Structures are given as C-alpha cells and as structure tokens.
C-alpha cells in the first residue's frame, strides 16, 4: 500500500532546514528519521509502515513553516509525536489487521521459499558474503557456532578473545549482519528490477 509522497518540494526543503541547517546533514537525518519511523510503525504492528511514514511527513510538511518558529526541542520528537497519533488514530484499523495470508509464518515461509525466490536470496547472500572481510565472515560464523545454552558461554569466550564485552560483541555482530541485510535487500531489488 505504498503512497505517493505528497509533500510539496518547498515544504520538503523546509523540513530539511528544520532538521539541520546543513543541508547534507539534514538529508542524512531525514533518511534516518524515515527509517526509524518505519521501524516504529513496524514494531507497533502497523500494516503499512512506509505509507504511514509518508503520512507523517505529509502532515508535518503542512505545518513546518509555523513549527520552525514555535517548536522547541528536537524536531525529530515532533515527527515521532505525529507518528504516535497516527498509530492511535488507526489502531482499530491496523492493530491486529492480520491478513489470512500472513497469519501463519510457516505457511508464508513455504510460499516464500519458492525455488526461484530462495535461489535469488541465496545468490544475494553469497554475493554479499564475498563483499565483507574474512574477519567479519569468521566472526559471524563463530558467533552462531553454538545454540541455546551453550552459545552464552561460547559468545562470552569470543568476546574475551576479542577483548570486548559481550554487549559490544552483540553490537559488532549486529552491524555486520545489518550491512549484510542491506546488501541482500539491495541485491534482491536489483534482481527484481531485472
């Protein structure tokens, strides 16, 4: 349910200027904010996080000139406030709006594990794994070497070997995985476009 971005260019410029006086920094903050709002909508089980994020920016764009004069504090919190209102407004509409196709993860997975899609994912994973360094691949490999109870001690041992806390190790692995996920998503988009 993707929506067209209805934010007029002039308002968009105003939004950027409000986020940061440096336009390049502002552009980065804008992208980050979009990403974060999509995540927040997702965590709130909203059916169309992207569309709702567009809606947030649409709403803010209509008042941005005034807000720049009146709002004090981190402008991102204002965007978040609008997002919360949207979630509340539409909670009855979106909350638990689980389609029949999506209720059973296993069933959905079996659909998604269709050979062609799975092959694309595997190809992209292979491709992206080659793009990261050997050390990073090794770390991911090591991190998942054990399961359940044994993994706790194992990961503590890895952290000790690397001279970092388990918390820092989790963050490092997350970052590697995140870069992999970004790469895979981008790769899948390219394959779909072809």
């Amino acid at each position, binding site marked *: 349910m993707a929506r067209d971005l209805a934010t007029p260019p002039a308002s968009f410029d105003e939004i950027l200027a409000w986020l940061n006086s440096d336009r390049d920094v502002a552009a980065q903050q804008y992208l980050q*904010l979009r990403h974060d709002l999509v995540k*927040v909508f997702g965590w709130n*089980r909203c059916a169309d*996080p992207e569309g709702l994020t567009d809606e947030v920016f649409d709403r803010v764009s209509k008042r941005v000139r005034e807000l720049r004069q009146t709002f004090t504090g981190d402008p991102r919190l204002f965007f978040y406030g609008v997002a919360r209102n949207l979630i509340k407004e539409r909670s009855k509409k979106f909350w638990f709006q689980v389609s029949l196709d999506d209720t059973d993860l296993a069933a959905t997975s079996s659909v998604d594990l269709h050979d062609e899609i799975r092959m694309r994912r595997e190809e992209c994973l292979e491709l992206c794994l080659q793009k990261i360094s050997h050390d990073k691949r090794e770390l991911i490999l090591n991190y*998942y070497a054990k399961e*359940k109870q044994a993994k706790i001690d194992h990961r503590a041992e890895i952290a000790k070997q690397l001279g970092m806390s388990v918390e820092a190790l*989790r963050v490092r692995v*997350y970052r590697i995985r995140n870069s992999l*996920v970004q790469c895979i998503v981008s790769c899948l988009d390219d394959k779909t476009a072809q």
Partner: protein
Amino acid sequence: MKEELVTDASLRQYLLGSVDDEERQRIESLVITNALSKERVFVAEEDLLDDYLEDALAHSDKERFLAQYAYTRERQHQLQISRDIRNWAIAQQERIVTSRAEISRRSRLFAQFRLKPILMVPIAVAAVIAIIGVILWLNRKMELRNRQFAVEQEIVRLNASTSNTDAQVSSLTLRPITLRSVAPQTDLVIRPEVQIVELRLLWNENESYPIYEARLTRIGGVQSFTIRNLHSEPDGMAIRLRLPSHILTIGTYHLELIGVAADGRIGPIEEFQFSVTG
C-alpha cells in the same frame, strides 16, 4: 527517560508488544533521538529473531513473536534474511566440523600405522647404518673393480709379445689335468723378490690356434681373471702366461686355456691346476 533504564528484558518485552504505553513511548523516543539506544533495540531484535529461529522462545513469547513478525511482509522478509544468514553460518560450521572429523579420522588411521616414538630412534639408527653399509659396499665393489681392471691391464702388458722385463721371474710348467692326473699336484713357492710368475701351459691338443684365452680362478675365491690374446710358443707345444706375483696368494688355482680360431670359433679347453704355498 534515561537510557540506562532500558534493559534488554524491557526491550524484548517492547518488541513482543508487551509493554505499556508509557514505556513504549520512552523506548521509541530514544530510538528516534539516540543512535546508541536505537542500536540496542536493533541488537535486541536480532537476538529475539535468533531465539525464535532456534526455537528457544517460551510458548507465550513465541505466540507474541508470531503476532508481531508474521504481521507484515517486510518483517517476514527480515526474518527470512536472518534465517538465511544463520543457516549459512550453521552450514559452514557443520562443514568445518565434518572436515575436522575427517582429518581427525585420517590422523587416527595414520597413527595406527605410525610407529611409536620409542621405536623411531633405533629404526633411524638402523636405517643410517644400512645406508652407510650400502655406501661402503658400493665403494668396496668399485674399489675391487678398479683393482681388477688395473691387474688385468698389468697382465695384458706382461703378456704382450713384445714385452720385455727386468723383473724377477719365476717359471713353472703346467700340464693339463688329464695328463697328470696321476702325478702329484704342482706347487708353486713364490719367493719375496719374485715379481712375475711365468706359467708354461702345455698344449696337448693336435690343433694349434692363432690365439688363446686363459681364465684363472682361485678355488674358493670369487675373483677370476681372463687373459686374452695369448700366443703359443713357436713350436706350438706350450702357451706362455705371465702373472704378477701379488695376485697369487696362498691357495689352489684353477686355470682354463681355450684355443680361439681365426674366425672367433672357440676350440678345445685344457684345464690346469696348481697351488701356491708359503
């Protein structure tokens, strides 16, 4: 809204949709404004996905997880990619473990055939001795061959028809074994100053030959000498054979004399025997 108050447990409850509105807003505000807090939520989310994928969630948490993550295709997609990465890592690990097991199995197999360290030193010593023995044997063989070659050259020189020498010579006439079978054995005493022993080999055959060939062997020994191009005396009754005295050590010698025709055909053989005594 202090960040330190956000624990992993509360983040997990947030991700499972089990926190109240106030806590939800607190966490989400931090996600929007604080990069580190946001990362913590993402890490907690990855841990949650992992726990689901390895079926480590409690039943109630699993139900809540499915309600959250089966909800949108975007989230399913995220889950599938996480599953792919995890499956890849597990498959790689299994491959490594299998590979190590195979190496270990081969090592054990190899170890069964490998000698114990305590035996290694004696075997190594024996091998070195054997190698040295072979080298010495080869050297000895080479030395004997060279010596024999030198002796044969010396005999050739001594028996050349034009060869004249001032050396001390001891002569001995030998009859073929058939003729002197009833006669006492011929003994040869070689005095120290004697350098050459000249044997007159009586030729009992009717036919004479342009050249003769003699083969000398010490009975019980391994060495033998073949002397070619020997000639008979002018009357054809005897063939003269000169030998350096140093090759004749104490013992009994057997000598074959063969006539060789002009066309290379081998004629009759006469046999002689003599003893060198002290």
